[in-house]
């Protein structure tokens, strides 16, 4: 299962994948789940956090078409949970170098059952390799069972209600054992990692002079 990790600032190098991701985000979160989100004329759902150079963790099919993705941000900067959902954690804004935020987690309806655990595996493995101990994220309360079914049960650290219904603040613990469990759940081969982040580096022709 092909994986891709791209920073927001580098998405321009992947226009097709970028548009598929944002369009599907719109159709899932706005059209299907009914969240009050804005989409552009092309149906792409993007918010201000997409402009803060997050990291997108994406799984695609063999042809490179988007199957599912998440958006990752450090909690030492601005986050959705601190900006919009601090009441879920008793007014405490989650902020730690050891915690990253995950938002906009979704898989396409046409993705197989492996897509969600595969996406979680890639995110968990990246966090482990980065010295990050937890992911935090706000999600609909019904999603906790979905995450558990994928093999990564979050700890609910806060509950509340929003216009979209019951919501929870979740903490996912990162560990070597968890990475391995997700790899097996997603039926990925042992030698499938690590997923490299796309990192453009300038050509060195300039130095020749």
């Amino acid at each position, binding site marked *: 299962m092909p994986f891709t990790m791209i*920073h927001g*600032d580098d998405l321009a190098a992947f226009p097709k994948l970028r548009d598929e991701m944002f369009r599907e985000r719109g159709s899932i979160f706005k059209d299907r789940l009914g969240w009050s989100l804005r989409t552009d004329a092309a149906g792409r759902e993007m918010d201000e956090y997409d402009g803060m*150079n997050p*990291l997108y963790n994406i799984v695609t099919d063999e042809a490179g078409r988007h199957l599912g993705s998440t958006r990752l*941000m*450090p909690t*030492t*900067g601005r986050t959705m949970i601190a900006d919009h959902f601090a009441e879920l*954690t*008793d*007014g*405490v*804004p*989650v*902020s*730690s*170098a*050891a*915690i990253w935020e995950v938002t906009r987690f979704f898989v396409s309806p046409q993705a197989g059952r492996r897509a969600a655990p595969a996406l979680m595996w890639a995110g968990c493995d*990246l966090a*482990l*390799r*980065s*010295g*990050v*101990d*937890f992911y*935090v994220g706000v999600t609909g309360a019904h999603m906790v069972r979905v995450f558990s079914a994928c093999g990564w049960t979050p*700890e609910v*650290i*806060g509950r509340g209600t929003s216009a979209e219904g019951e919501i929870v603040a979740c*903490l996912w*613990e990162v560990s070597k054992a968890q990475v391995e469990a997700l790899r097996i759940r997603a039926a990925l081969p042992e030698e499938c990692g*690590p997923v*490299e*982040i796309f*990192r*453009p*580096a*300038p*050509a*060195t*022709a*300039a*130095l*020749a002079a």
Partner: protein
Amino acid sequence: MSKALDVIVEKLSSIPDLSGLGDVIEAIRATYDVDHVYYYAVSLGLDTPVFEDTRGGGLTRDQGIWRRDGRSIGALSYSADWIHHYFEAKFDLIDPVLNGSLGSFAPLDWGLLDWSDPGRRRFFNEAGEHGIGNQGYTVPVRGPGGQFAIFTVNKACAPAIWAKLLDDYRSDFMLLAHYTHQQALRFAGTARHDLARPLSPREKDALRLLAEGVSRARAADRLGISENTFRVYVDSARHKLGALNVPHAIALAAYRGVMTPQ
């Protein structure tokens, strides 16, 4: 938090100004048994330069701290020869570690980079000749207003030794990168502490229990929350207070009188 980290954080907390960073870098190098360590703040996030650039974009060193372009500062264990050569040869334009980190927040293991390009190959080889390790790990730190810094450790060693070192200490390097940057911002006068944002009742409760010597597990239990939630509260309080570890957070909170329940 490892014991090694405790020692470094204590040292980092006790330095009086930027000139102490060099000692901290040396302590990190010795403690983690790596060849080199550097902290390089590409930008401290200011509209105006933090120091006078007397040499017009030149590289200067004062009390162990390198300064460049009036905006960047660095504390490095590298030789002065290599640092001068690096900028004279314009390696900063092609360095895949620096360029691959810019704007990011995800650490970068040098082994995963593409070194096949001839210029990059030359850079890698020359770095090796100057004692830079072939194995390296770089943690980018970004902050508001365009703040950006990188923290790097490297060592000349076999892949297996390097993998073991990272397995043991990745979390330490993540925290050290952030704490070193936090102190640099403080000394450069550009830290933005959230003094306007008071501690929430839960953060005060958590600190107060720790100050009373209650264990984390019992404190969490008393507050009716999990240990992980407790850790989140303590981390947030520490961050708001601008403290690098829990004892300092407690001391600062006590000093400012913000721990007492209202």
